[in-house]
């Protein structure tokens, strides 16, 4: 009941984090990677001493438009440029042998701008489609629950939770890549967001499912219980499970983060934030929202009743 009674505080925390994340997405801004903008990413590992970043900047400047040069690890650089033609590519690769420093080309990734903009469009479509399908699915699964809150409002509560779960990890990712690690928004990022959506719904459904069960039990045993009590009870009953599951998955991701190597590090970071946000939203946001909806319905009904008596 603590959660239901103090729901305004929990809504407030979510709102602050949500709008904070949106602010971060505006400034410093979302770092779209070459998957979306088109361009070339090169990762080189110097086998001897790594040349200075300035030297590389100077060597590449006359050849092409360099978007960024980031040192990665002890020996590597991650270089992003606009899309390179095969000829320019050769001269860029030669120029990287600064003072004939030996290196190996670990990764070369070049994407044309048409593919980039297509992927961007596809990603938005995927996220919107997933949210839409899930809301329809929830409305369908909870179709037999109509009192006191109609089943589509369970869907609405889920949308709010999902928006929260997508925006906050994205904001955290902006911070993370801006201050702590090299990285940008690529396809893996979108994949991670979609996985978070899936997980968060998973988590929310478990609580809603309990609400549904308790409502049914009450109506079977003809117990009169106010809606907020039922929801509060359901949260308490599923609390242990929610925390334990999230904790396990969090630990798994922590393992992936620590041992999973560079290619999936940003991915697991994003998922970790997502799991925390998803767990928070299903316990402190989605379910209390149901109570909020019910209160508003009551207030409206009350107002309508008063109006009719006055008339």
């Amino acid at each position, binding site marked *: 009941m603590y959660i239901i009674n103090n729901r305004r505080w929990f809504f407030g925390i979510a709102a602050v984090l949500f709008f904070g994340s949106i602010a971060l997405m505006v400034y410093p801004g979302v770092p779209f990677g070459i998957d979306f903008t088109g361009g070339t990413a090169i990762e080189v*590992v110097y086998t001897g001493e790594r040349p200075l970043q300035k030297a590389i900047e100077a060597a590449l400047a006359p050849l092409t438009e360099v978007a960024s040069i980031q040192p990665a690890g002890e020996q590597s650089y991650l270089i992003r440029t606009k899309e390179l033609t*095969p000829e320019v*590519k050769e001269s860029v690769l030669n120029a990287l042998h600064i003072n004939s420093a030996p290196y*190996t*080309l*670990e*990764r*070369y*990734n*070049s*994407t*044309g701008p*048409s*593919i980039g903009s*297509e992927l961007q*469009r*596809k990603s938005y*479509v*995927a996220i919107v*489609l*997933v949210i839409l*399908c*899930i809301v329809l*699915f929830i409305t369908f*699964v909870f179709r037999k629950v109509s009192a006191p809150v109609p089943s589509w409002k369970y869907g609405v509560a889920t949308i709010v939770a999902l928006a929260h779960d997508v925006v906050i990890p994205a904001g955290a990712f902006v911070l993370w890549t801006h201050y702590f690690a090299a990285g940008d928004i690529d396809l*893996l990022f*979108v*994949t991670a967001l*979609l*996985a978070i*959506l899936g*997980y968060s*719904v*998973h*988590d929310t*459904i*478990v609580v809603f*499912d*309990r609400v549904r*069960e308790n409502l049914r039990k009450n109506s079977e045993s003809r117990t009169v219980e106010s809606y907020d009590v039922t929801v509060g009870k359901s949260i308490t009953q599923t609390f*242990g*499970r929610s925390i*334990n*599951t999230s904790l*396990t*998955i969090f*630990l*798994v*991701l922590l*393992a*992936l983060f*620590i*041992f*999973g*190597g*560079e*290619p*999936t590090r940003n*991915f*697991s970071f994003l998922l970790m934030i997502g799991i925390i946000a998803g767990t928070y939203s299903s316990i402190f946001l989605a379910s209390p929202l149901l109570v909020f909806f019910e209160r508003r319905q009551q207030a409206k009904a009350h107002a309508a009743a008063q109006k009719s008596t006055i008339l």
Partner: protein
Amino acid sequence: MKYRIFAIVALLALVAVSYAVQDGFAPKPAWLERQFQLGLDLAGGTELVYNADTADVAAAEIPSAMESLREVIERRVNAFGVSEPIVTIEHANALGGRTEERLVVQLPGVTDVAKAIELIGKTPSLEFRVERLDMRDTATASTSVDELFAPTGITGRLVQRAAVEFDPTTGAPYIGLMFTDEGGKLFSQVTRDNVGSILAIFLDGTPISFPTIREEIPNGRAQISGQFTIQEAKQIVRDLNYGALPLPIELVGTQTVGPSLGQAAFVAGIRAGIWSLAIIALFLILWYRLPGVVAVVSLCMYVALSLAVFKLIPVTLTAAGIAGFILSIGMAVDANILIFERMKEEIRRGLSVKDAMHEGFHRAWLSIRDSNTASIITAIILFWLGTSAVKGFALTLGVGVVISMFTAITFSRTLLYAIVPNTSSKLSRILFSNGSHF
């Protein structure tokens, strides 16, 4: 009793599946040998993405044109000597109704991109070369084919049309060629001058047929007969007709991953998987006690089954795919946690351990079903929209979620029912309880 027998069968199945799926721990017969298919990001290699220009092709003919494009490119790549190249067609539906046709060429182990691009982009050559009579007597086994034949100037450029035809008496397939006017004249001249010699036909520098010229062929038509099947004849005809690529292509994306980076990513993925399994096992056993042990055994079954499915389909494993799989391990644990938490509640309500277990399964099922369905919906949308990397993630996640539901309600249940005590002693309550309660 019934459940104990089932449980033994289930455990034997676990051993069998694990044995079948393992690599390098114990010897096994050849028919069980299957390798994991590793994506380029793990194996190292190059992926080239081409846009095909279909503007000049009628919409109905696009699929067949793309298919012949794919085959031409595949043959060229094979000629390059790449082990297991994968050439696939991708329909990029840009959602505005405009469909772009793409060709994705994956070259495992190839990091010399420039050479690969050049090879794929070049036009294949069909060439007729005539036997060099001066070499006939001096030729030894070590003489190369190129030395034995001299160019005639007749190339694929001069072929107007090729078709598979059949000998009316023997029924054997042969290839009928029709040259252009220019080609017909040249052909007639070459055959007149070289009656009795061999006129070898070279495709991409490799001789594919050695017909002997019997007489001058004046009408601009030729036949290539040889010991080939209908399939081979069709193949050659297609090569001749599409001497040039059937569709113009343009390189729009390149991706190269060095072999050491791929190897490192693979090892890191495996290590993360093992660590996460260990962490989960520790947590489950410490918190959920005896049922926790069952859950761990069940998780092992889950992992073994999933790996078997990955090998069988086969699912191409990428870094994202491994991450998806590890995530699905977490989801698999959730099914067990839901059941156990429910059991605990029922035990607290005063039910016997046995009844609590039945109730736990029964009640948790709805939550497991609904929540996993949501995950499956996500996986399907990802798979449908995604490019190869995202597809890998979606597939492992989707397969993982389905298998985890399956193992939770069959495997875990059988094992738990097999060990559940009939009487409710203090000890059994402690073993089946969880958390800090005793």
